């Protein structure tokens, strides 16, 4: 294990990573958010979900450096007297949680279907890929909106809707990689020693197509977070009691023209920063893993 870690630090990937400021910044941002959502709730001034802890007297407080601001509410409060910073930490937790869970689920489902379609080909392949075609001909947002409108708000429903929208991308990419990979001799060799199709797929095909998958999955985390934010902003995403970053922006927007700019600007900047960091990292991985760009 120690040896492997040593190998990683001596690898080309790590070397290139250090020489790519964008990638380093991206990773720093992502790690910042990860640490924040994991241990942040222990340090936030308030638990924004605990309605009993809120005081309406604290409503509409500006950030602490402005006139009327208080130290207890560093970034100000919303109309219910909720501390914005605490709400953002908890909101990031929900946004990132949805992003990671959805990517994990859609990646697993899409990869499996893509592997099966690409490896076996034939009718199953045609059927799955036409399904993908049909779905890709609708904007992802529209499909997600439709599903959410039909089933209503909720964390689980949101994950479901975004997974339904997301798997097609993985399925298509994996399938095309499989088509390339399965023509190679070591796949024939694996069949020739008498392996059944699924061991061939999982032991020999899958490890060799992981690189494009890693790149897509990384960038998709950002895309999913954005989609979720949009849905929540439109009022069909997470429930109002547990706001994600997108819903915080929406709540802030309602009072934006009353001069309470902070309650939508700060969550908005958070989304931007998070997605920016993820994309920097994703771009680096894409450049690294794409032999044509080297």
């Amino acid at each position, binding site marked *: 294990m120690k040896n492997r870690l040593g190998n990683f630090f001596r690898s080309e990937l790590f070397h290139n990573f250090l020489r790519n400021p964008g990638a380093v910044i991206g990773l720093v941002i992502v790690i910042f958010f990860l640490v924040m959502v994991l241990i942040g709730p222990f340090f936030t001034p308030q638990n924004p979900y605990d309605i009993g802890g809120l005081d309406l007297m604290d409503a509409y407080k500006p950030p602490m450096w402005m006139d009327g601001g208080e130290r207890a509410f560093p970034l100000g409060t919303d109309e219910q007297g909720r501390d914005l910073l605490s709400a953002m930490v908890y909101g990031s937790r929900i946004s990132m949680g949805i992003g990671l869970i959805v990517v994990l689920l859609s990646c697993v489902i899409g990869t499996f279907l893509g592997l099966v379609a690409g490896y076996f080909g034939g009718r199953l392949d045609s059927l799955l890929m036409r399904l993908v075609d049909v779905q890709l001909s609708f904007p992802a947002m529209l499909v997600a909106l439709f599903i959410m409108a039909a089933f209503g708000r909720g964390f689980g429903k949101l994950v479901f809707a975004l997974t339904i929208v997301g798997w097609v991308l993985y399925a298509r990419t994996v399938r095309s990689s499989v088509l390339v990979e399965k023509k190679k001799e*070591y796949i*024939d060799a694996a069949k020739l*020693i008498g392996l059944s199709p699924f061991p061939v797929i999982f032991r020999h095909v899958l490890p060799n197509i992981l690189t494009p998958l890693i790149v897509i999955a990384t960038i998709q985390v950002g895309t999913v977070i954005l989609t979720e934010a949009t849905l929540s902003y439109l009022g069909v995403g997470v429930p109002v009691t547990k706001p994600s970053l997108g819903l915080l922006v929406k709540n802030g927007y309602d009072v934006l023209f009353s001069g309470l700019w902070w309650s939508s600007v700060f969550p908005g900047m958070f989304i931007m920063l998070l997605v920016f960091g993820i994309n920097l990292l994703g771009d680096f991985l894409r450049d690294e893993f794409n032999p044509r760009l080297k």
Partner: protein
Amino acid sequence: MAEYLLEVKNLKTCFELFRGTVKAVDGVDFTLKEGEILGIVGESGGGKSVTGFSLLGLIDLPGRISGGEVFFRGEDLLKKSEEEMRRIRGKEISMIFQDPMTSLNPLQTIGSQIDEMLALHTDLSSAERKQRILDLLTEVGIPNPADRINNYPHQFSGGMRQRVVIAIALAVNPRLIIADEPTTALDVTVQAQILKLMENLVHKFGSALILITHDLAVVSEMTHRVAVMYCGKIVEEGPTKDLIANPHHPYTKGLLESIPKMAGARTPRLPQISGMVPSLFDLPKGCSFAPRCSRATERCLQDVPEMRLLSPGRKAACYHPAGMAEEGEGHE
């Protein structure tokens, strides 16, 4: 026990493509005894490799085996289910590929790739398998097998990788090994070593070997018998020494004459077989070789010659065979 280890009768494999049907293997017959080494020789696209894959039932769509019988130890492999075939592949019949650069999984250590074969076809415990892997690697001439077992394919040279591929092929003592151009991708200096190694091991393990190659020099070195393929058909077959000394089919003769000779009088220009291999979509009506053949007559362009016994143990599909004692049929 059947007389032959492998008996292929009228094997036909075709590929149904958009442009038409390609008969890649068109009525191939041959037999193989236990421990025998058979060479299958021919030009690229002659159906040699497809023959090899057909024996194992590994023809992917749009190809299919359209007819014939493949008796292996008296049982017809073409009638077996996929499940039964899986138990035969690797265990009874294994295969060595042309290019060791691509025939090993780049992301698995060579130890685990050999282990995969052993785990699938034997009941050995993992310690026993490890010992067997070490023995196999030693057998194929890999120095320090204990250190090399956890290496990845990219840490090996081409010749060493082919040794690993051979170790995998031999791992569970198959009765038959099909080697598809095993030395084509290797340096000339390494080729001889690998061939010698295969010959020794096949002898030691008592397996039969089908050596598919386009290199007649390779064939003459180590095979007992040779079958020459042209456009999906076997055109000549016989014991190696005889066949090389006295080829009957004009195609075999052409192949042999086009090998540069290091000794003896130098001809001003190396003889070659004129013309091109015909497109498999559009094979000539009679003998496939007739358009390129200097001995061809009207009949060769009309009828397809059958394989016939020309001298003891020697068969060829030609109306006007060369090198016959009587030089008959008045074509000259």
